């Protein structure tokens, strides 16, 4: 019995005995000429314990992002510098393979730094599930709008046919995108994957797949498709070309959202520009040529910079593949300097598309001149490409670069929020007001990304979706007003509610939704981002909150001046009537959806949070 007990005790203690304890001396020489950790490079096994014991002098232990950093960023921390005593590294840091760099804060510049190599020294790559589908859903998603384009072209001499074809095609795409969203589900990893090798010698393939990050964007693109077509129902000028370009644009944007290969991603990214250029240049307002020109050149130049970044990633990874998944796996081998440069290149490409101040000047021009359908796609989908690209293509392979640029991103985001809102407040053109409000809203989304936390990223994606619904609706309102009154100048408007009570109700609902009324989708996004930002940056939150005050201000002020108040005498209001059916239905649908996603955020939030968690896992942040 006694023997058995002893054996039992042994069994219980054995694991504890296996965990070896290592001791590191934290000290300095008597004359203060050298400061050191002894040993400075410590090799331990997984599960070992590391104890630090103080010798001479006042020191502390703080984790550093890499072996060259001079300051504490995040991670383990022994507290303020102390004299004497000891400190044990929390057990969680030695649970997995990896390299931990640390330093003594007061003496980092004197070279007092060390590192602990746990196990193999390389952080384990988190497994991301790849699930190849049995049915090529995503290929169909890309092909159907393209077929619609050709079909429209075939019926170009028929006045009615193109719009019917476009509506049919976009409805089919909507059904497909809903199916894809449901099939993508909310578990980790990529679903419905397809791979078609395009060039084996360079590792280019049409690698398609959706996860919780792209599925909501696919859904958004699907929803906006039929609404755009409906809203442009009465387009008289070259309808076949118009609807054909809209459908082409849909293929291109969907392509960006579902592709997982840098080369093909860039391809779709640029293809987006061509139909958009023509939509603005042919069907736009008086200064359409200038606006289209500016838009094209701005975004093209920026994406070339991005392309160089992609090439650098490809060569540095050395895996002979453009697959985002494979390249992200190599991120551990990218040097910090390399990551900073490449992240900067990618960020320029994405920031112009978002757009962030100071790269935003193309946006108001393009928006004001674009036809309403063009504005809908521009605000609803194209502005999302930038943030989506940032999260999909830049964060996972370049974690250190992203971390380095956090202050820049935060600063740009806050400036965009406040500057965008302030400019909106000053606008008299309703459409320009909405355009600047987009800059402000996308600033909130970037702020979410800059927190690099699960909640922040999820809030950013939710903001992309919510803004993707409500901003197009605001442009539709501007379209309705222009259509009926011939002007969008806010001071000339007034009292529209008296002439079109039902439509005015929709206007109010949309304006309130856009300013972040609880119960509508934007609120969920703003709340998540602000909570995450408060957790990571504390009271800096007051700055974006101040931006929110301005946001509420310009929304309500514009509403009050244009829809309510006495009937305007400056324009002919005699003919003002309720919006037409093809204008009302899209607006109504959007209000319904905005409420739906405001009340039941988990429909989107659960896949989004899982995807954001995956991104952070790939970055090594969790």
């Amino acid at each position: 019995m006694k023997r058995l007990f002893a054996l039992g005790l042994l069994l219980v203690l054995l694991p504890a005995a296996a965990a070896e304890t290592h001791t590191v001396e934290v000290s300095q020489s008597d004359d203060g000429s050298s400061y050191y950790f002894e040993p400075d490079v410590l090799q331990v096994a997984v599960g070992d314990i590391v104890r630090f014991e103080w010798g001479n002098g006042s020191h502390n232990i703080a984790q550093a992002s890499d072996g060259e950093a001079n300051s504490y960023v995040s991670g383990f921390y022994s507290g303020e510098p102390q004299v004497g005593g000891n400190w044990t590294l929390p057990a969680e840091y030695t649970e997995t393979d990896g390299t931990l760099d640390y330093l003594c804060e007061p003496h980092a510049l004197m070279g007092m730094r060390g590192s602990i190599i746990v196990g193999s020294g390389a952080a384990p790559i988190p497994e991301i599930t790849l699930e190849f589908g049995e049915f090529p859903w995503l290929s169909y998603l890309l092909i159907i709008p393209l077929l619609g384009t050709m079909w429209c072209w075939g019926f170009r001499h028929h006045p009615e046919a193109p719009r019917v074809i476009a509506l049919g095609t976009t409805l089919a795409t909507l059904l497909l995108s809903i199916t894809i969203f449901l099939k993508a589900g909310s578990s980790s990893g990529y679903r419905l994957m397809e791979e078609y090798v395009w060039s084996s010698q360079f590792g280019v393939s049409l690698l398609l797949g959706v996860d919780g990050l792209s599925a909501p964007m696919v859904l958004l693109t699907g929803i906006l498709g039929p609404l755009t077509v409906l809203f442009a129902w009465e387009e008289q000028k070259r309808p076949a070309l118009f609807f054909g370009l809209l459908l082409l644009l849909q293929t291109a944007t969907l392509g960006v959202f579902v592709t997982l290969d840098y080369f093909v991603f860039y391809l779709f990214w640029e293809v987006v520009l061509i139909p958009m250029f023509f939509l603005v240049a042919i069907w736009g307002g008086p200064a359409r040529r200038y606006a289209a020109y500016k838009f094209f050149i701005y975004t093209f130049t920026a994406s070339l910079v991005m392309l160089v970044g992609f090439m650098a990633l490809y060569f540095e990874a050395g895996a002979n593949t453009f697959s985002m998944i494979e390249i992200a796996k190599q991120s551990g081998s990218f040097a910090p300097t390399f990551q900073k440069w490449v992240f900067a290149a990618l960020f320029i490409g994405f920031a112009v598309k978002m757009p962030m101040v100071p790269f935003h000047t193309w946006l108001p021009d393009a928006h004001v001149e674009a036809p309403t359908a063009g504005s809908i796609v521009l605000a609803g989908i194209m502005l999302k490409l930038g943030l989506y690209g940032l999260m999909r293509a830049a964060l996972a392979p370049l974690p250190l670069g992203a971390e380095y640029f956090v202050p820049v991103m935060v600063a740009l985001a806050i400036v965009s929020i406040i500057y965008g809102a302030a400019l909106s407040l000053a606008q008299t053109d309703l459409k320009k007001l909405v355009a600047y409000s987009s800059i402000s809203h996308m600033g909130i989304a970037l702020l979410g990304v800059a927190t690099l936390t699960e909640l922040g990223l999820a809030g950013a994606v939710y903001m992309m979706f919510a803004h993707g619904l409500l901003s197009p609706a605001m442009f539709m309102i501007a379209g309705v007003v222009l259509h009926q009154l011939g002007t969008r100048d806010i001071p000339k408007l007034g009292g529209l509610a008296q002439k079109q009570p039902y439509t005015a109700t929709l206007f109010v609902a949309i304006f309130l939704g856009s300013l972040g009324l609880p119960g509508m989708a934007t609120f969920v996004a703003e709340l998540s981002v602000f909570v995450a930002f408060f957790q990571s940056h504390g009271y800096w939150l007051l700055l974006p909150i101040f931006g929110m005050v301005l946001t509420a201000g310009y929304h309500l002020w514009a509403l009050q001046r244009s829809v309510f108040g006495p009937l305007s005498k400056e324009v002919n209001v005699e003919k003002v009537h309720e919006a037409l059916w093809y204008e009302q239905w899209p607006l109504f649908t959007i209000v319904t959806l905005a409420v739906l996603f405001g009340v039941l955020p988990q429909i989107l939030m659960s896949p989004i949070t899982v995807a954001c968690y995956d991104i952070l896992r790939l970055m090594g942040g969790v």
Partner: protein
Amino acid sequence: MGLELLFPEFLLAAAALLLPGTYLLHRNARLCGQLAVATLAVALSATWVQWFGEGLVTPASYFGHLQIDVFSQLFKFAFLTIAFVTGIVSLAYLGELPHRPEFFTLLLTATLGMLIVASASDLLTLFIGLELAAFSSYALVAFQKRDDGSTEAGAKYLLIGSFSSALTLYGISLLYGLTGTLSIASLAAHNWNSDFSGALFVAILFITGGLGFKVAAVPFHAWAPDVYQGAPTPVTAFLAAGSKAMGFVALLRIFVVALGSMLIEWQLLLGIIAIVTMTVGNLAALRQQDIGRMLAYSSVAQAGYILAAFPAMTELALGGAIFHTLVHAVMKGGAFVIVAAVGIAGLGYGIDGYRGLAQRSQLLALTMTVCLLSLVGIPPFGGFFSKFWLFYGIFQAGMAGQQWLLWLVIAGVLNSALSLFYYLRVIRNIYTEDPQGEARPFGEHTRYPALAVLLLLILLIPLEYDYLLTLCRDAAASLL
């Protein structure tokens, strides 16, 4: 070794001799034109059969002067295609002008010169090929002898051309004096005893000057805008697509093969010329009002992109350069086909002539747009792929060690963005303006070349770039 691989050359030579005779007997200019086009078609299909039918396992050498390998077959095929399309367009473009038989005879001899350049294996043969092509083109450029522009362009081309030929020849003679051989293979094997030889550098400078003229590299580009503007448009297409590619063939043979071991002598020189060429070309193109001049400067810029691959000297970069040379021939040739069609229709050669082209002819408008966007390098058109893999190759060489090559990539990328300005101006005119003035309807003859260009740029090159690039890489590998 039989001579069947030289069949296209013999055929062209025979046809060039027989064509004037046919005219003297029948007095039928139209027949002569058709015969010339038919000859080109036969030569083209013969090359196709030789190339793809049996494959080409070992290079075949003839008399030590000509060598048929993958590289030369590829370019022979390209030159014959260009000449064939030029022939078709010319049939309609020349209309009832006098001296058409001479025109087609010259077209055949110029093509023959290009074929010889493509397979020359010693410097003298190379030079003879260059001169044969050059002399034929001088006359072709000045063909519309009643037109001041055309004759002026011809005179300019002749003067600058003969000057540059002299430079090339002098460079070649210096090389001969230094090494005692003219064979490219022996030059490549020559043992240069020092790291850097002043005499060799002078020879290189002369050859660069002479061939830089052919590809219109800065500072030897001044002829290009005048000649492109003044020459009959099919001839311009022939020069822009064919003659330029021929210049690159000669450059590749001389620098990469013959002087490949003395990379250090010319690497930096060509790198600097590349950057200057692309920048000057694009900046000058910004201000042009004449479409021919604009495309000429764009040609200068494209020459800069291609030259950037030379200093890299890797199979991938050179393969990309060859690929871009060929795709450039398609894009530029296609653009000039449209310019010719618009010109025949009486809309003139200014950028303003393109106003509202979309409402006159959807096909021509679309083809022009695709060609121009392709020249910028915007996906999904063919030009993007060739340009991407060209810069990819240079980037790779840069990452592999020679860091300064990355500047070539950066310069190329920035220049691509710059070039968008002037191409977009034409596209904007095509789609957003209303047509002005009356125009004759567009003929049927441009329809098929335009469709072929569209098919190539939208479907064939994007979908099959992997295969095409492999071909070009094989060609590059056969050089190295």
